[in-house]
Structures are given as C-alpha cells and as structure tokens.
C-alpha cells in the first residue's frame, strides 16, 4: 500500500487534521472514542468531503482540493468492513459475497471467489440468508465480500468490537490468513491494543482530531506497564501435549505448561508481565509450573514500573515487570542471567 493523506475537516466543534504517508501492508489507527477515527474513516471511504487537502492511494488521486478531485465511494476501490458486518439482509451469503465481484470488469477480477470461500471457511454458509448468521460468520462474509472486489485498500472499522472475546479470537486467524494469502493491504481502526498487536505492523495514534504519533504496536503495548493488566506477553502455543491434566508445549528451546479447560487447547495466549516473577538463584521447590532460564536484554521504565525484557532463547522474549527496589536487590542489569517463574494458570486464551 502506498497511502498518502493530508486532510483537514471541521465538523461543528470538532476538527480533524491528519497528515501521514504509509507503505505498511497492515496499518492500525488507534485512539479513544471521539478521537476522530470515524471521521478519518469517512474521509477515506468518500462519504465525507475534506475541507481541504489530498488523499492519494497508490497512483490514484482520490481527493484533492487543489485540482477539485473527489472520487465517489464506488470509484475509490476501497473495501469497507464495519463493526456490524452490514450484510445485505435480502440476499444470501453467496449473493452478498459476489455483490461487488459481479460489478467488477473482467480484467479486475483477480481474486478467485472459491479461494476466498475456502480461506474464510464459508462453504457451509453460502445458501443462508444474512440474518441467519452469527456475528462472527457475518464478519467473515463481510470481509470476503470486500476482498472479492479486489480493493487497493481494506478499511476495517472496529471489525471485532461487536463480537465477544471468544468470537474475536476466531476472526483474528482469518484476518491474518487474508493478509498472508491475498496480500491486500488494510487499515484497521481499533481501540483495542491487543487487536492491533496481532494484526498490524504499524500504528497511527490519534487523539482529539490530531495524529499524535506513529509507532510499532509493540511499543504502545509496553506503555501499558502501568495499567491494571500490565503488559501482555503474547505466546503462541502449538502441538500441545496433555500431561497430568495440564498442557505442555515447546516454546523456543524451553517447555511451557498451561491450564486450559476448553476442549481444544492451543492458539495464542496472553501472559501478563505482572504474573512473571524473577529469581537470581534456582529455586529448589516451587509450586509454579513454569521456570525458564533467561537473560536480561533490556530494562525500561514507565510510570514507576520497571519492565524487564528477557531473552528466553530460540528468539523468544518475555517482558516481566518489577519495582525499582527489586531491581536494586537483584542487581538486575543487561546481560544478567535470571530465572523467570509463572503459574500454569497465568495464561489467558486470546484465540
């Protein structure tokens, strides 16, 4: 994606001024509600006209106040996915999926419907009407429908926020598959850091109508050290083995153990930085089921908390958080070898 945006828009008391250029294939837009995310969405989608500025997508000029260009939504080639799916209720899933595809000229039909149906797992749903679908199914159909138009950009406006946690987790792998399989760039609007970390490479921060910065989602996550949840480490668990009522799996060079009562364990789990204890010496007998050898690679401070980034071997890192006093007592410094301890039930399933 090659997106350039420099726009200003005033709506009553609220005004938005945004300027950014991005080549990221998965860009996030992060901000609290009322920060201007939706306004920016509307400006990009073409429903609201900027007061002035330029919007360019690839080599196409979508809006320019100087040349008086303003392409209508149907010419922008931007696929939209909303919070609620917005499927056409009078059409079947198949008809919904093909709505845009059928309106594309033959040479633009680059994405094969059967492949999309396969990747998004929609085979069983094709004959159903939109109102008969669950929230998660609706979002998958909406995603497929937008994708089949072969858009230059997918605009995803809080696509997961209307779903409960379990369903959210089920959609994330589909979105990742879409990025992997079709390479369609997207801009994900969200107020969930977790979603942005899982789905984007770069995040724009917006507050009160102004872009306040851009960074890697990981960087923003590290600032949550001071929050009640702490920093959430994301751990991918594959090939789990059942052992004494627990699940074990290889993680880099070490083995982790977790508790998961759902029938199908595996996927992504979060582990809060607050749940990881650090030890200088090997503790002899402990109740915690996870004990890792690590090396401190970085110490960073945020709101009175110290984040300790640990290299656990095999390219796997974890972040633990401690207080300043602990840093002094354990004489923590970069390069120091420590043991990280955490309980098997500290893992929370993300998807």
């Amino acid at each position: 994606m090659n997106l350039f945006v420099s726009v200003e828009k005033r709506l009553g008391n609220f005004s938005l001024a945004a300027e950014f250029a991005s080549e990221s294939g998965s860009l996030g837009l992060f901000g609290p509600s009322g920060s201007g995310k939706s306004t920016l969405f509307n400006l990009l989608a073409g429903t609201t006209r900027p007061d002035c500025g330029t919007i360019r997508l690839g080599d196409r000029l979508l809006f320019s106040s100087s040349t008086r260009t303003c392409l209508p939504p149907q010419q922008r080639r931007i696929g939209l996915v909303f919070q609620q799916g917005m499927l056409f209720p009078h059409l079947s899933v198949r008809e919904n999926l093909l709505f845009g595809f059928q309106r594309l000229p033959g040479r633009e039909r680059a994405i094969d419907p059967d492949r999309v149906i396969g990747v998004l797992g929609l085979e069983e749903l094709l004959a159903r009407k939109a109102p008969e679908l669950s929230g998660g199914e609706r979002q998958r159909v909406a995603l497929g429908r937008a994708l089949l138009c072969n858009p230059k950009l997918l605009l995803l406006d809080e696509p997961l926020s209307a779903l409960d946690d379990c369903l959210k987790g089920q959609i994330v792998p589909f979105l990742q598959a879409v990025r992997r399989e079709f390479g369609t760039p997207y801009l994900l609007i969200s107020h969930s850091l977790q979603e942005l970390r899982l789905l984007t490479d770069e995040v724009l921060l917006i507050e009160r109508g102004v872009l306040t910065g851009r960074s890697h989602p990981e960087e923003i996550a590290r600032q949550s050290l001071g929050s009640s949840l702490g920093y959430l480490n994301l751990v991918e668990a594959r090939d789990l083995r059942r052992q004494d009522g627990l699940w074990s799996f290889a993680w880099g060079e070490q083995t982790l153990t977790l508790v998961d009562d759902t029938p199908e364990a595996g996927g992504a789990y979060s582990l809060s930085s607050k749940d990881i204890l650090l030890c200088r010496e090997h503790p002899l007998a402990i109740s915690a089921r996870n004990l890792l050898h690590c090396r401190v690679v970085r110490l960073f401070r945020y709101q009175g908390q110290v984040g300790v980034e640990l290299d656990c071997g095999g390219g796997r890192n974890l972040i633990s958080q401690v207080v300043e006093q602990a840093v002094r007592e354990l004489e923590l410094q970069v390069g120091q070898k420590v043991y990280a301890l955490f309980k098997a039930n500290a893992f929370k399933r993300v998807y």
Partner: protein
Amino acid sequence: MILLTPTDWQALMLSARVAGLATLLALPFGFLVACLLSYGRFRGKALLEGVVNLPLVLPPVVVGYLLLLALGDAGLGPLLDRLGVRLLFTWYAAVLAALVVGFPLLVRSIRIGLEAIDPQLLLVSSSLGAGRFDTLCNVVLPLSRRSLLAGASLMFARSLGEFGATIMVAGNIPGLTQTIPLAIYDYGSAPGGERLALGLCLASIALSLLVLLFSEKLARGRREVNS
C-alpha cells in the same frame, strides 16, 4: 335484506378500479419522490416536501377546485383538447383526484421504510462498485418492499374514500363517475335512501377490510421469510 342495486355494483367496481389505478400509477413516482426527499441533497428540497404534503392538509375540495382550474380552459384544457384527451368529468379525473390526494400518504409510508435502512448499507453498496441507480434498484428497492406495500394499501384505502376532490373534477354521474362515497352521499341526501346507503357502507367496509387483510398477509409472509 340489504341488496345492492346494479348502479351500486357499478359504483363499487368503479371505486376499486379508480383506487387501484391511482395506486399503481403513484407507486413508481412515490418511490422516486421518497428517495429524493430521503437521500437527496438539493436546493428547494423543503419546497418539494411542502408541495408533496400539501394535499394532506388542504381540504380535498380545494385540491379538486385547483385541479379543475388546472385542467380547465384557463389551464391545460386547450392543450388536452388538441391532443384529443378528455379528462374532466370522466373516471380518469377521479383517478387523478385520488392520485393527488393519496400521494402524500404513499410517500410518507415509503419514507419511513427508507429511513429505516442503515446508511452504512448504502455506503457498502457503493464501495462495492454499485452506482446510485444500481444501489437504488438492488438494495433500496428490495429493502423497502414492505413500506411500499404499506404505503400502497394506505393509499388504496384513502382513494376508496375520496369524495371532495372527486366530486369537483369528475362530477357525480351514476354509472360513469359515481364512486362509493358519491353514491352514499346521493342516497343519504334523498328521502328513503337510508337502507341503500347502509348497503353501500357495508360493502365499503368489506372492501377496506379485504385490503387490510391482504396487506397484512403479504407483510406476514415476508416477515416469515426474513426471520
């Protein structure tokens, strides 16, 4: 025993024909005007809205008189004559009167349906490459079928009862332009006509009920399909 005379039957059939034709003719225009008023952004929208709704608040007799003027010698009369079209005091004039008087009801009903359609659906449709007309035909129209139906039955029922404007432009000629309300008026104002008037009243009630049941059935059928 209450019996309908042959003239009553004629009035009954004429009423149904007038109301049916007026409703059919009004439907496409009603849909377009409702779309214009709901989605359009143009100068003079308030004026259009006012003009469309005017017959709703004006006494039907005034509407009829204005139509009479518009179609008379001072208005379109000479042009219609040249074209060989005779409107005034034929049943077509009754259709015209019913159309003008019932139109705002139809538009109002359709607008309620249009405004219930989520604007995001329309945005999705255009983002998928559908132009305005395409969206109108393939998204808006199918999603407003129920309100179209509701509007049509409302307008049909209103047209059955049209009196004031009809008597002004179509007159009250038994067998030719005499609809049910006009016939009832005739009976009511003639001595000894009470029983005949009552017969027509009952017929009118039956006809209206039939329309109501029919539209309810259609609406319910659609609801079952949707749910």
